[in-house]
């Protein structure tokens, strides 16, 4: 029966978060650190927006509930900033 997804390794999770936020929350890729950004504050802010939109607890962190929502099939239109 439905359970929260297994915790993947942190790198895979962060990649998922990065790609999701770029697609749906207009997170700008960092030109110097495409795979990883040194300052996480823009990402934290976008995660908070995403959590607020989906009615999740606003932690600014990619916790299991947030990752679960990010893995659900969805529409490709951004949720904010249209």
């Amino acid at each position: 029966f439905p359970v929260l997804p297994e915790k993947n390794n942190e790198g895979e999770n962060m990649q998922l978060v990065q790609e999701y936020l770029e697609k749906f929350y207009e997170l700008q890729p960092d030109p110097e650190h495409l795979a990883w950004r040194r300052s996480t504050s823009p990402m934290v802010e976008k995660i908070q927006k995403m959590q607020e939109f989906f009615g999740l607890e606003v932690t600014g962190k990619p916790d299991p509930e947030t990752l679960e929502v990010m893995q659900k099939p969805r529409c490709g239109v951004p949720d904010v900033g249209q």
Partner: protein
Amino acid sequence: YGFILPGWKKTKLTYRIVNYTPDMTQTDVDKAIQKAFKVWSTVSPLTFTRIYKGIADIMIAFGTGAHGHCPRYFDGPLGVLGHAFPPGNGIGGDVHFDEDEHWTEGSAGFNLFLVAAHEFGHALGLSHSTDRGALMFPNYAYINPTEFPLSPDDISGIQAIYGPSPNTPDKPARPASPKTCDPMVSFDAITTLRREVMFFKDRHIWRVYPDNSEVELELISTFWPFLPSGIQAAYENIKDQILFFKGNNFWVISGYQVLPGYPKNINTLGFPRSVKKIDAAVSNKNTGTTDFFVGDKYWRYEESSQSMEKGYPRQITDDFPGIGKKVDAVFQHKGFFYFFRGSKQWEFDPNAKRVIRVMKSNIWFNC
């Protein structure tokens, strides 16, 4: 809801199906698309006419990865299912579906009608809604196709752009999502499943772990797309299964699957034909019996022999004093029975046969 003004400056719009998915017959695709447009034309002054060549306002296509001149790419199976562009010239209004998904007219894979209806909402100027019960919520959730898929939020959104329909809708909108901490909340049915308790209301389900403060609101169809909304009774049996009741039908569910041969008629459990529906059910883990509440009476079912006990039905008030004559829902937790009617619940000790306390129905949600 959210929207992008001004929307289309006309109400008579055209659409064209540029290509087809091989997952479905062309007739079924045509039907799904037509039905998806009808959803919006029912509640607005918009009309949609199909054209077969040239440029339509809404061009509909299936594609994979980088497709045509579209600036947005698809991502393979799962993830993004489709996308659409707000009203405008050129790509404006166009709708694309990811051909890497499995498109169907049913509950398997992704239902094309539902995804198309959602994308058409974008093509008409709506953005995503934060209402989980809205069609314009960004995550896919299967809805029984016999139900009208728009929520009041969706209808308010489209009518904020184009105004209401000149005709009265022939189908009622889906009920709005229930509010978790509404003090007047009542429940259709409640059951345990292992360590969690599930509260059913219309199309929704709250999942609660009693020893944990988390409450999750989901659509029933997220887990069991084949179940109808408005479940009237449910209980967990001794085989890690849940039985769901609506009208004279019941379903046995194991995990995500319904067991073969269901739904069955409740008469097969031993009810007389005069019983048309079950109000509530609870399996007593201490005795291995299940009590079914129907009106002011209850029946007792022996789980091991799978038969009704003799001497039933009996009056609820005789054996469960203090809980009244009718029950909406009931479940067992740590030996006690919790009976619900309207916005109240009664904690009942089945051994002492007395009510311990009376509480608001939603205290399980930590409101």
